[in-house]
């Protein structure tokens, strides 16, 4: 079990080691950062199918801090470390041309990865808050990394809203600790099962819910996201949209509602309605955008709506659909943001009106964007189709056909807005298209193409993970959530 601690310790160590050693040798930060994320990906791959509890410092469960590994955690670990490896590969050339100070970039990047891996693994409320803050603060700095006025403004907005959410979480943790005299998540769940909820614990739960809904950027808590995600450098946008909102937002929500506080019909209704609202308003707002990355950012809200809708249904099929869509979204959304980075790398703009006919000059970028667009719009045989299909089937099976209709409408509107990207950027041209500049464009360097190709392949093949349904890969993952607080307590405290 010692290897799961390295998932947190290794990026943390490298985050401080790279700025110390990397000033002298130019290529060293790139090599070290990529090697770190590759090792992390291997470590995360090794956690699949294993479960266990790791007591830090040898102090056992209710007293000490524990790291908990189960199928849900290892699914998230896999997503986080896969996307971060792709993002660091992409960063090598991208940062060289568009930004300065790679040392600080990689340092903050690895801190963010350490924070997310910790959030996903921890079984302790205060530890959860600390890791949440490590990941969030690193992301605030990365959003404003370009130091232009609008980037700093977006970063400041994100900082203020994110800090309010973090304060809510801290207050909730304080209230829970004051009331139940424990910080261990399983122990809190056990005490709540024994004594039931009272006003203080209910209030603490509501604070946690609001805090993590803000971090997960679901409507009406989304205001920071459309500014923050486009302002960051493209690999960071891929990390933020691809994994950060899931790891420190949606994952924690799922874990807390299903495994600690217990899901209720009211919560289920809340999740499905927030899911539908996010899904529809997100996609409608996306339709009107002319900024490539901002359009993608609104789609993140919309697609998170699908995930929360699936989770809120609470049936095995719904959970499967939600979690599968979470995995798929991390693949195609990070691919789309990396594509937008490639386009920005060549054209120097994010405005769709200024682009045109890029498919002739940048075939790999255009092809991978097409794959990702088809995936996110739910066209077979790409992975997005399968997860949306499962969500829609789950809604029908649960007798909520109305929700299924909304999911289909959302999907059609998604296709409409991605046709717009294809039409203006790749296969047609915008109003302000400049043929003179266009003639000089060429395909991005090899190191930027590799992540695009890998992620496209995964988008194409992603549907295969559904093989076997609930008896296959997804069985244990859904089992963790369906077991509710009882199983979670059993696996950690053994009672």
């Amino acid at each position, binding site marked *: 079990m010692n290897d799961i601690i390295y998932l947190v*310790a290794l990026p*943390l160590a490298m985050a*401080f080691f790279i700025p*110390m050693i990397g000033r002298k040798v130019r290529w060293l930060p790139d090599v070290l950062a990529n090697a770190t994320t590759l090792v992390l990906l291997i470590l995360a791959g090794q956690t699949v199918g294993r479960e266990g509890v790791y007591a*830090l*410092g040898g102090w056992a469960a209710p007293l000490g801090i524990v790291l908990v590994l189960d199928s849900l955690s290892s699914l998230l670990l896999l997503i986080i470390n896969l996307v971060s490896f792709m993002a660091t590969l992409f960063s090598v050339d991208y940062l060289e041309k568009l930004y300065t100070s790679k040392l600080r970039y990689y340092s903050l990047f690895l801190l963010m990865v350490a924070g997310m891996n910790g959030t996903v693994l921890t079984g302790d409320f205060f530890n959860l808050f600390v890791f949440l803050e490590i990941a969030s603060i690193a992301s605030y700095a990365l959003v404003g990394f370009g*130091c*232009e*006025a609008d980037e700093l403004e977006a970063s400041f907005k994100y900082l203020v809203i994110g800090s309010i959410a973090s304060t809510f979480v801290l207050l909730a943790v304080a209230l829970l600790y004051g009331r139940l005299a424990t910080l261990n998540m399983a122990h809190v769940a056990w005490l709540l099962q024994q004594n039931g909820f009272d006003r203080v614990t209910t209030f603490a739960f509501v604070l946690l819910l609001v805090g993590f809904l803000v971090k997960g950027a679901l409507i009406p808590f989304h205001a920071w996201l459309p500014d923050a995600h486009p302002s960051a450098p493209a690999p960071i946008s891929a990390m933020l949209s691809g994994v950060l909102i899931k790891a420190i937002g949606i994952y924690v929500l799922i874990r807390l509602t299903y495994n600690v506080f217990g899901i209720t019909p009211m919560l289920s209704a809340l999740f499905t309605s927030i899911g539908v609202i996010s899904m529809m308003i997100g996609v409608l707002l996306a339709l009107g955008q002319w900024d490539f990355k901002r359009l993608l950012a609104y789609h993140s809200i919309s697609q998170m709506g699908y995930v929360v809708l699936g989770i809120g249904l609470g049936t095995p099929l719904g959970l499967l659909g939600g979690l599968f869509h979470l995995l798929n979204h991390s693949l195609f959304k990070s691919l789309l943001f990396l594509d937008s980075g490639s386009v920005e790398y060549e054209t120097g703009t994010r405005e769709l009106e200024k682009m045109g006919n890029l498919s002739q000059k940048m075939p790999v970028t255009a092809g991978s964007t097409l794959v990702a667009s088809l995936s996110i719009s739910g066209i077979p045989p790409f992975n997005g189709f399968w997860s949306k299909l499962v969500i829609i089937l789950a809604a029908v099976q649960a007798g909520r056909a109305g929700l299924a209709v909304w999911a289909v409408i959302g999907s059609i509107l998604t296709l409409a807005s991605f046709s717009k990207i294809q039409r203006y950027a790749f296969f047609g041209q915008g109003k302000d298209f400049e043929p003179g500049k266009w003639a000089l464009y060429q395909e991005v360097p090899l190191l930027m193409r590799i992540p695009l190709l890998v992620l496209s392949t995964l988008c194409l093949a992603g549907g295969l993970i559904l093989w076997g349904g609930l008896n296959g890969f997804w069985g244990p993952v859904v089992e963790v959530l369906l077991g509710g607080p009882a199983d979670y307590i059993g696996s950690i405290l053994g009672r």
Partner: protein
Amino acid sequence: MNQNKQPGMSLIVQTVARWLKGFIFLYGVYIIFYGHLSPGGGFAGGVIVASTFVLLTLAFGKERSLGKLGKLLASELDSLGALMFLLIAVLGIAWGRIFFLNFIEKAVPTGNFKLFSAGIIPLCNVAIGIKVAASLFMIFIILAVIRVQEVKGRRRLVTTEKRRKE
């Protein structure tokens, strides 16, 4: 309000600061090293150590304090503190297969000539102290040297050294 062109505050402030800076620094170090036995510890002690440099900056201007602890050195110390802390934690794995294991022998003094030992906690405090002192000093200095300035029609953040050149 300084009449002569020397940076910093008045002569009274400078004299008092010159006398006190050593004591404040020493007190910070004491808090760090005694943190496992009395209130205090790495964070509190680190803040006090950093406040010595803040006092120097306020009294004599930033050149004086940057001469004592340069930005590069502070940044290296900042990383060093964090790495030391992690190293202590990882040594626990080398010693007893557990991350953050308190692997040094712990003892409560029972007779004469026995030492009180809290294991790795004082070492962790030293690491935290270095980290906190260096980072707080860095935050203060960054706030002191960075200004918003118009560069090519756009408002950007620049350090004061660059600003003087332009």
